[in-house]
């Protein structure tokens, strides 16, 4: 809401028309008049692509290939959430070695995505550069370390999935082909080196100057029955409230269409904006971190409940240590499965499934008919869930901006938005589904 009668009050607008170093296309406006916020908007204008609409009538076996295309940065998150939801619908469970392989490929995606964000998208904010390329002129070793870690994550995905972006092997019940033990063990040296490099990254990130800013967050993350939450989970944890069953999340977190965004805004049923992603996972599951990650977290004095979003870069670095260390353990323990996947017969059913994408909770729901064709699909991505929270953060940030030079204040808003690692292409594709429901 904009107030135009502020003739006598000082009005200031902080705005960026095209956010950079984020995935997808968005903008923001923060308008303050007489010390009061009159408008705070994260505008998402990425063109919608209507995934839920064209998932209808597709075979259940095509869903995993299709949903990968929602996001080039976190395709595995989409594949894994879809696999969980479809397997729950079909009543099948991959064998333990296959679930371990799922965690492994997902570790690869966390590594690739977190390394990209920490070093290439977010670090330039803290060190004062327009991009990692300019940053490399003064901090070559740092940027090269980030690229090396990212490459190791991608190598893991390529081995398991065929390629780093839109891998081809994940399927219902497991993988089309499982890697040989010998090939997988070739990654050990790179992973071991990367654990050390990730530890260094935590120590470095902990030294970065973060503006003082704390928020009383409602943290939302998946439960961690199989360790630090990643590829599965049976309930959704909400700080200060009762956990929500997976099947109920769609109702517990209704989404709304707002005029300034092609993504939907999700809030809890009482209107509370919540935060999902690394800070929420750490809050709920610090004791499930790999010891290598827990140790370095203690060493730098990072608390489990980080309430300053400008410090999310440290939490992401801790998760990098976790992902590399767990990946190394999984590679060491790997035994080739008897079959690469468990067969699933089609049946008319509904299934929900969720996993932890690098940037937060990703929930899917599918309705199948007796032939295994999709009758209905619903996908709730992390960024549409975080969108309302980002706007409330901007409102809370406003009083601290007024004393700053304009450019610095604007940058601080941008840096805050980037701290969420928003994935705008992801957030955009979900208009149609809810709307179709309303129309029916």
């Amino acid at each position, binding site marked *: 809401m904009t107030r135009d009668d502020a003739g006598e009050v000082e009005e200031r607008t902080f705005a960026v028309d095209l956010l950079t170093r984020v995935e997808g296309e968005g903008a923001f406006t923060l308008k303050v008049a007489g010390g009061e916020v009159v408008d705070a908007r994260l505008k998402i204008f990425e063109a919608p692509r209507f995934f839920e609409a064209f998932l209808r009538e597709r075979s259940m076996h095509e869903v995993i290939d299709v949903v990968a295309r929602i996001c080039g940065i976190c395709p595995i998150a989409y594949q894994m959430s879809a696999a969980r939801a479809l397997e729950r619908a079909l009543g099948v469970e991959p064998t333990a070695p296959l679930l371990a392989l799922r965690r492994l490929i997902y570790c690869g995606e966390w590594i690739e995505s977190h390394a990209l964000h920490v070093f290439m998208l977010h670090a330039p904010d803290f060190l004062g550069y*327009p991009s990692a390329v300019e940053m490399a002129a003064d901090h070559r070793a740092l940027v090269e370390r980030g690229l090396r870690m990212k490459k190791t994550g991608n190598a893991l995905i390529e081995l398991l999935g065929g390629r780093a972006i839109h891998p081809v092997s994940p399927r219902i019940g497991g993988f089309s082909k499982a890697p040989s033990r010998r090939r997988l063990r070739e990654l050990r040296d790179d992973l071991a080196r990367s654990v050390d490099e990730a530890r260094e990254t935590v120590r470095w990130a902990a030294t970065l100057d973060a503006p003082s800013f704390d928020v009383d967050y409602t943290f939302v993350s998946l439960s961690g029955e199989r360790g630090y939450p990643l590829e599965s989970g049976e309930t959704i944890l909400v700080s200060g409230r009762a956990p929500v069953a997976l099947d109920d999340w769609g109702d517990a977190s209704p989404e709304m269409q707002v005029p300034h965004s092609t993504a939907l805004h999700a809030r809890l049923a009482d209107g509370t904006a919540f935060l999902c992603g690394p800070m929420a996972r750490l809050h709920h599951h610090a004791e499930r971190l790999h010891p290598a990650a827990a140790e370095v977290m203690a060493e730098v004095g990072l608390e489990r409940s980080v309430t300053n979003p400008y410090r999310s870069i440290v939490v992401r670095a801790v998760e990098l240590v976790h992902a590399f260390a767990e990946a190394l353990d999984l590679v060491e323990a790997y035994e080739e499965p008897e079959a690469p996947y468990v067969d699933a017969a089609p049946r008319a059913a509904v299934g929900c499934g969720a996993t932890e994408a690098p940037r937060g909770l990703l929930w899917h729901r599918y309705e199948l008919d007796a032939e295994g064709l999709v009758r209905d699909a619903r996908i709730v991505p992390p960024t549409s869930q975080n969108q309302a929270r980002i706007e409330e953060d901007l409102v809370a940030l406003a009083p601290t901006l007024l004393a700053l030079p304009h450019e610095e204040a604007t940058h601080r808003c941008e840096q805050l938005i980037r701290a969420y690692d928003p994935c705008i292409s992801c957030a955009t594709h979900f208009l149609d589904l809810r709307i179709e429901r309303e129309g029916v």
Partner: protein
Amino acid sequence: MASDAPAPGATGRPRLAVYKLASCDGCQLTLLDCEDELLHIADRVHVAHFTEMTSLSDTSEPFDVTLVEGSVTTAEQREHVRHIRASTKLLVTIGACATAGGVQALRNWRDASEMLRVVYARPEYIDALATSTPISDHVKVDFELRGCPIDKRQLLELLTALLTGRKPAIRDESVCMECKRAGNVCVMVARDEPCLGPITHAGCGALCPSYDRGCYGCFGPHEAANARALGTWLREAGAPAAEVKRRLRLFTGWSPAFREESERHDEG
């Protein structure tokens, strides 16, 4: 195709821009996934506009090479792509969305007015065209790089070729050729697994057959693709019409060869 190396910009290095339309960001991410080459590329090329990578945007003079991912799905994008064309010497479209309309082109077979009525609660908030189309439907394109996503090796070959003024060594052949060179057993012959390899453009390295599954055509048709023969073969092998149609209509379904053949199996 350009035969000369682009003239360097004011910085002494060729000016590169990267833009996106409707897409997943995966093709531009492929550039950032060149972990070993990225800093060298940045030494040789002035990255003048690439919002996913840098906050700098130098649009003061024309670009030498512009990479665009994504398809045209809104009136604004239709204008934007004309603007991009006018501001660059060479325009290279990258990926299945930019070269064939992408997975979002599945909307093209739907009745637009019905979509508008059914799909939007508040259609006044949304700007969307009824179709998703490749960039070459709207402006002249100098080179197309296929794939969903594009292949990193092909991207590096293309950039190197453009910057040195030679023709990119990107072969127009089928996935089958790569598959044979990889020494794979044919999934269609040995396991009756439907595979679009015979009609699909090479570039991925025969990834799907190497991972024990049929090709799903994400690089789109190669130039001499005989989609009709494959469609007929699949039907004779027992696949229902609806399945053949579905397989052809996926990430590159709006490419003319796949589109026409899919329509032949459209029994409503």
